């Protein structure tokens, strides 16, 4: 009887961000669909109202079906027999509900039966689903692959595949192999073109494939014989109806147990090329990964939220020494910081989603007509921000999800270590978020150039230039001090002109930038809505202290110290 959308007012707050007006206008091409589709909005308010109403459906399904099923799904998990996967009973019910509710293909254009929603409401749905069951969010969130198919496939492929996704068929992205994990250039799955049949055939093995028995697969394979690097890889679409791919086994994982992680064997599996040859990894998978990273951020935010709620509920109810444990400073501090991290993560998620929305909508329009010079500048600006914010957000929000899940157990004490409470599942589910779709260490590699080139600093200075209520001024002063300290730290490290030294401190620098960004985002939230005041205070206090710590570490570190750390 819970509605995960209605019981969390911060979602509506993020949905109503001022930039939405421009995003919706671009996405809806000035509401041109209204005469052709009975479910298309007629104006901005109508579109926003639709997002709100659809999210209410998502929230209801999450509260009434997905969350109550999560425990049994975690326990039962999927099974594999004769090369085919059977989902847990609860997973089947969840899928049935989201299909009936028409929640597949949310971001796809209406001409392919999608809802044509921008990324922001789509990601909000992912946030909700992840709070209910992070493992199920994986299956549902793989509709992201349709986005890649839409971006890089041809019109014929759009027409054949996207409506199927909108009707509820699931997808997978088959990238990794036993010897190609983080380093995808090493992918060896072989794609051979048959002149006789006029199609491609795939042969080889893929490993760690989420939802590997999906209806429609995007596959990264080596199409150029004799090559060894990224330039020999292309992207393919494999349709399960054609056959040729079997599931050899499913992994027995620590968390997200409802989501089948498969080892796939391709035996002359018929496939078709998606996009151009040789651009598979260089262009398409990079695009796919950015979208997927945003999805993992949403998953992290959902888990953080669930962990906060589980921790809070228990701390209020559990009595020790004659009072509820929430009354003890050691406990309420933990809870306040958990809430602040969850709120900061969520603000980052939607800030990033808006950048992606702006960039993608303009990019999509550029396929229909030439962009104006202003629009091109706008697209470049948001594209760069999306590039910078995605790794920072993915990297840090997933770490926070882990910390929140850890603290949720801590609040439960011994009971949290037992299987009786949801917090232990959250803890196990959280653990993969900072690993897959690029570990935090790899997110730092992607983010560090935005530290050295000043993308983050420039954005933070833009936040600084915004006006805030007088009563928030002192928080802003603190943030200015944090920003100055960050700027100085970057200078200290880059001045040494030592690449290894920079790599060594990269995470500390990215974290410092993150504290400034997250702090300002919460300040803006508090500026618009007083209910965020507490999280802004708590987070800025925390970030301020963390930067001091990093400052002390870096300032007292010399390049020669690296020697002590080397293996």
């Amino acid at each position, binding site marked *: 009887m819970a509605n995960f959308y209605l019981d969390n007012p911060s979602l509506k707050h993020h949905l109503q961000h001022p930039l939405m007006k421009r995003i919706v206008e671009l996405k809806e091409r000035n509401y041109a669909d209204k005469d052709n589709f009975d*479910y*298309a909005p*007629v104006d901005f308010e*109508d579109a926003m109202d639709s997002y709100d109403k659809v999210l209410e459906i998502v929230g209801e399904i999450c509260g009434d079906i997905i969350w109550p099923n999560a425990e049994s799904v975690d326990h039962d998990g999927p099974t594999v027999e004769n090369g085919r996967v059977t989902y847990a009973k609860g997973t089947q019910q969840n899928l049935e509900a989201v299909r*009936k*509710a*028409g*929640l597949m293909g949310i971001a796809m254009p209406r001409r392919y039966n999608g*809802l044509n929603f921008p990324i922001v409401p789509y990601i909000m749905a992912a946030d909700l689903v992840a709070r209910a069951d992070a493992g199920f969010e994986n299956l549902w969130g793989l509709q992201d692959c349709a986005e890649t198919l839409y971006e890089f496939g041809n019109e014929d492929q759009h027409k054949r595949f996207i409506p199927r996704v909108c009707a509820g068929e699931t997808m997978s992205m088959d990238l990794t192999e036993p010897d190609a994990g983080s380093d995808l250039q090493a992918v060896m799955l072989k794609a051979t073109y048959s002149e006789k049949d006029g199609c491609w055939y795939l042969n080889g093995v893929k490993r760690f494939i989420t939802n590997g028995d999906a209806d429609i697969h995007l596959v990264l394979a080596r199409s150029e014989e004799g090559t060894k690097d990224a330039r020999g890889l292309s992207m393919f679409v494999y349709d399960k109806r054609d056959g040729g791919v079997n599931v050899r086994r499913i992994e027995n994982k620590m968390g997200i147990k409802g989501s089948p992680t498969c080892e796939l064997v391709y035996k002359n599996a018929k496939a078709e090329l998606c996009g151009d040859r040789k651009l598979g990894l260089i262009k398409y998978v990079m695009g796919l990964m950015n979208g997927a990273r945003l999805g993992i951020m949403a998953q992290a935010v959902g888990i953080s939220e669930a962990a906060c709620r589980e921790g809070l509920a228990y701390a209020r109810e559990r009595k020790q020494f004659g009072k509820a444990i929430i009354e003890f400073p050691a406990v309420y501090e933990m809870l306040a910081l958990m809430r602040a991290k969850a709120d900061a993560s969520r603000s980052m998620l939607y800030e990033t989603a808006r950048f992606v929305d702006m960039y993608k909508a303009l990019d999509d329009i550029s396929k229909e007509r030439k962009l104006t010079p202003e629009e091109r500048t706008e697209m470049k600006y948001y594209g760069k921000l999306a590039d910078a914010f995605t790794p920072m957000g993915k990297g840090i929000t997933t770490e926070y999800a882990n910390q929140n899940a850890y603290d949720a157990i801590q609040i439960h004490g011994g009971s949290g270590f037992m299987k009786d409470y949801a917090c232990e599942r959250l803890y196990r589910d959280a653990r993969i978020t900072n690993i897959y779709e690029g570990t935090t260490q790899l997110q730092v590699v992607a983010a560090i150039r935005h530290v050295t080139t000043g993308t983050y600093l420039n954005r933070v200075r833009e936040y600084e230039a915004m006006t805030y209520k007088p009563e928030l001024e002192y928080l802003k002063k603190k943030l200015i001090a944090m920003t100055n300290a960050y700027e100085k730290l970057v200078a200290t490290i880059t001045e040494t002109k030592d690449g290894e030294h920079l790599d060594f401190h990269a995470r500390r620098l990215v974290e410092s930038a993150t504290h400034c960004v997250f702090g300002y985002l919460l300040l803006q939230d508090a500026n618009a809505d007083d209910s965020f005041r507490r999280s802004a205070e708590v987070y800025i206090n925390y970030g301020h202290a963390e930067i001091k710590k990093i400052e002390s570490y870096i300032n007292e570190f010399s390049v020669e110290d690296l020697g002590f750390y080397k293996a």
Partner: protein
Amino acid sequence: MSLRIIVLAKQVPDTRNVGKDAMKADGTVNRAALPAIFNPEDLNALEQALRLKDAHPGATVTLLTMGPGRAAEIIREGLYRGADGGFLLTDRAFAGADTLATSYALSMAIRKIKEYDIILCGRQAIDGDTAQVGPQVAEKLGLNQVTYAEDIFNVKDGKVTVKRRLERGIEIVEAPLPIVVTVNGSAPDCRPRNAKLVQKYKHAKTVTEKQEATADYLELFSTRPYLNLQEWSVADVNADVKQCGLSGSPTKVKRIENVIFQAKESKTLLPTDGAIDELMKELIANHTIG
């Protein structure tokens, strides 16, 4: 021939949390004090209707509800889930109706709809818990009825096969159409609202709703006729005013109270298999479980 299904649905106060002001001085329910919801078992009935529609292409599902203006929400909720249309019976003269007056009004409306094969409704509504309206409608229309339905297996050759949930088991019955079927709460839950249908029908309004000051998007109604929700008055369904509403209702509620079940005594059991076995036997014997 396509199957024509009518679903009788009621907007009810959410009696799961009854407060002091739940009843008015005249013994009728104070609807303003309680949030209005779709009667739960009517949702089970709607799901059965939608499943029949899924299984029989071309079948239509029409909702019929009686209530104040805001009960139009029931029709919208049905449209959001896949119903094809609906009628709101609304008139001051319908107000204060007991089951007799309600079933009279509904049966008159069904006569007006005229063509139907199956009439589905929930077993009972959570505000009255009488379980009388469905059977009374069947009697007034001279139709067969199957109560406590949990599943409708199939409709073929003018006959329907229904699984009934009884106190000590199930019963499978077959009956000729047209028929009234009341659906039990143990039947499958209703499907969620559909994202596209919500966007399609969210502006749907009755004439009365269109006249409200806050009404918006009125320009859409000329190009999207499906947004017009039908309202029927006593006169529209050719009903006799004296048999409607309070004047047609012999039932008078004297008092309602919120009963809280509380354990009066406790019992300490030894933590042995034998003691648990004894307890289980006792609970089964006094029908607490099983």
